[in-house]
């Protein structure tokens, strides 16, 4: 019954679905897997299609004319794209490190059973899970009061901590780190910061990986913070860039068809259509390569989270 393990007993072998059902199930799952994979391949092949071919034949999974011009264009004069890539990488790296530090330190403090302010801090973490100030007041506080508007911190700070992650950490520390270990370090005269850095963190790598991955994917995939707080195009992340390209190239196309101007005139100078999809591919490729390897950390986090909401 367990997935992924071999058939150890004859009973297991006997208790299997019939060959026909098995192939039927395989067929269903192959179709579903393709349904999840093909849309991404469509984007990939559009990015590899010549602009001419897109103009004449539209988008296609099997383009008539392959061309790398979109990627050449990006490599040659895509300062904007390299800059956006830089912003995305920076935000993801800084945000993940900051988020892991903030989340695990709080998780550790909450996991100490004798800490005097544990009750208060538990409430501070818990209340935002059920009640929040909503978009409007967050927006004004972040942009007017904290001055995050048009700074890179607007992309980093608001996403750094989530109560869900703090609770995963607390549960992990509580269940895997023996109190005796920490008490003996306290008796030896180690301060809490020292205990946290040189005892707790080194033996908690699985949960660091889980939280780190959650944060990493969240920062890499975030576009909402940019849409809210970033007007300066130099601070666009890849997601923000793609977001603006989606509406800009589109606006051009809409005008062209309604005003009767020749389509070619407007789209003449650059491979717009394919370059746009090439940006999407630049976003997707690192994720698509990384997630199969990190899946197990994700799954452990999701299952803790699902059971311990």
């Amino acid at each position, binding site marked *: 019954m367990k997935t992924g393990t071999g058939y150890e007993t004859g009973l297991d072998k006997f208790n299997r679905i019939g060959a026909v059902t098995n192939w039927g199930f395989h067929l269903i799952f192959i179709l579903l897997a393709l349904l999840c994979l093909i849309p991404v391949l469509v984007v990939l092949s559009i990015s590899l299609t010549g602009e001419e071919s897109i103009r004449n034949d539209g988008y296609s999974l099997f383009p008539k004319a392959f061309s790398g011009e979109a990627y050449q264009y990006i490599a040659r004069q895509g300062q904007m794209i390299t800059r956006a890539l830089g912003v995305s990488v920076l935000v993801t790296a800084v945000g993940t490190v900051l988020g892991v530090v903030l989340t695990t330190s709080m998780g550790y*403090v909450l996991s100490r059973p004798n*800490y005097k302010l544990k009750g208060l801090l538990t409430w501070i973490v818990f209340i935002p899970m059920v009640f929040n100030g909503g978009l409007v*007041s967050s927006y004004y506080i972040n942009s007017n009061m904290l001055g995050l508007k048009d700074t890179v911190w607007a992309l980093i700070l608001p996403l750094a901590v989530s109560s869900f992650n703090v609770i995963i950490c607390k549960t992990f520390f509580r269940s895997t780190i023996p109190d005796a270990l920490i008490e003996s370090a306290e008796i030896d005269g180690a301060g809490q*910061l020292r205990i946290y850095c040189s005892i707790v963190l080194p033996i908690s790598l699985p949960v660091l990986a889980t939280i780190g991955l959650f944060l990493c994917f969240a920062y890499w995939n975030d576009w909402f913070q940019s849409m809210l707080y970033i007007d300066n195009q130099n601070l666009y992340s890849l997601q923000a860039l793609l977001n603006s390209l989606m509406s800009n190239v589109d606006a051009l196309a809409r005008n062209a068809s309604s005003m009767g101007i020749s389509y070619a005139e407007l789209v003449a100078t650059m491979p717009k259509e394919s370059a746009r999809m090439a940006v999407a591919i630049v976003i997707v490729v690192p994720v698509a390569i990384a997630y199969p390897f990190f899946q197990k950390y994700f799954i452990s986090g999701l299952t803790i989270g699902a059971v311990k909401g």
Partner: protein
Amino acid sequence: MDTKSGRKRLRTRWRTQDTELTLLALPTTVWYILFCFLPMFGLVIAFKDFKIHGGFLSNVINSEWTGFKNFEFLFKSNDAWVVIRNTLGYNMIFIVLGIAIPVILALMIGQLHSGKAGKIYQTMMFLPYFLSWVVVSAIVWSFLSFDKGIVNQFLTGLGADPVNWYMEPKYWPYFLIFMNVWKGLGYGMVVYLATITGIDSTYYEAAVIDGASKWQQARFITLPLMKLVIVMMFILAVGRIFYTDFGLFFQVPRDSNSLFTVATTIDVLVYKQLKTATVGMASASAFVQSVMGCLTILLANWVVRRVDPDSAMM
């Protein structure tokens, strides 16, 4: 829980460790105050005539109280009701499908003779979960674009007329539901598969010896043992019924005005009102969402505590 010793501990004096732990928790506490608790107090602007110019704090303090005027405006407009209908309606469908489909697929994938193939399918079906809604929007566009989209090419290939998808509200409930299921499939399967894998195999051995068919095993062993997780996921989803995935409803329909009535949920409305500087209405909508959301989450948590105390939040 030994309350006696707990009370004793509370009375014991403040130690160095407590100071150190407080300092260790300080950065995160400050984060919570700035990014979670300040906005909660900011909710009062729903009851004020708030102007955007100048500093936030002085504005909140100095602006005039207007009572429920913002709410009156909000609920007089037709938008509010359409949007609440959409939010609740879509969420109800998402909850049912978001449980039924992954549960059925998790049951099926565990039955495949080759566990390795199952793993591969599962990994592939997890891909959409890791895509951002902006990328998904680009994907949907490549299928539904009027002049270049794959679907319209297919239609014209069959001799049918191309459809201007982004202008036709009637198709969009199906599209949005499909995209939601598509993106969440991998996640749902992971959760339910973890439960199925955790079931003791001796149950099935005993059932086989008693002559139970595969179907009977699923019906009388697996499903009953999954019931608790399913109920939990259901209740948690119901608790979030006033919140929707902003990306799905904003990015996928590409903010098309023709689709307003079928594709706008509370989150999207708040954002649009905020961007068009109708701050009073935006703050009123956000307030309604926060309060209703809080009530439903607390209610759901209360139900969870009755079903399974260990899974409740508090």
